[in-house]
């Protein structure tokens, strides 16, 4: 089974802090994604990556950056955390750029910015 592991289930940080969310997948997938999930809004794509050292902006990239130095690891960075970034963050991976293969999700990181 594909396993996508997010480093923290719950995280509490303060406004202005630099925050790192880590995600690791074990299936040698090329594609990795970061979403945030908010009630009534579904999942919104922040950033994605098709290969090592490659990244592309999703629909809501402002205030975020990403890093993909190794194929299995995709990190989401909040450069200067703000309260409106309090949310559930989900990482996903897939092996098919064509999109018909499923995305495999981690269990999420619930991030609170105080």
């Amino acid at each position, binding site marked *: 089974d594909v396993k*996508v592991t997010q480093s923290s289930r719950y995280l509490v940080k303060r406004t202005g802090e630099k925050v790192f969310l880590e995600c690791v997948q074990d299936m040698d997938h090329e*594609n990795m*994604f970061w*979403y945030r999930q908010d009630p*009534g*809004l*579904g*999942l*919104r*794509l922040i950033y*994605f990556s*098709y290969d090592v050292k490659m990244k592309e902006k*999703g629909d809501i990239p402002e205030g975020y950056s990403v890093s993909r130095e190794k194929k299995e690891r995709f990190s989401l960075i909040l450069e200067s955390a703000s309260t409106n970034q309090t949310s559930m963050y*989900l990482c*996903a991976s*897939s092996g*098919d*750029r*064509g*999109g*018909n293969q*499923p*995305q495999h*999700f*981690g*269990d*999420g990181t619930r991030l609170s910015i105080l």
Partner: protein
Amino acid sequence: TQLLEQSPQFLSIQEGENLTVYCNSSSVFSSLQWYRQEPGEGPVLLVTVVTGGEVKKLKRLTFQFGDARKDSSLHITAAQPGDTGLYLCAGVRGNTGKLIFGQGTTLQVKP
């Protein structure tokens, strides 16, 4: 801008009832996926529909993809408490592998 409208957002029904969740868009998708998410976990794929007019069945769940590949529905027959969860539709955007998600439908099935 949300391109995929999912309805209803909340549904609370009794065990044994039938229900339908709708996913509508003005955009054409190359395929559409349905996911189910339980509390504390990430979404898990239920089905992918690819061809316009396609119907797929997964036990008591029936998924349809509209002829024009702009809309989809999920019908659950004789709902059970184990069906409780958040159901998400997601359209595949062209050949990019990116998904656009609907807002989700929170289903509660009471025994």
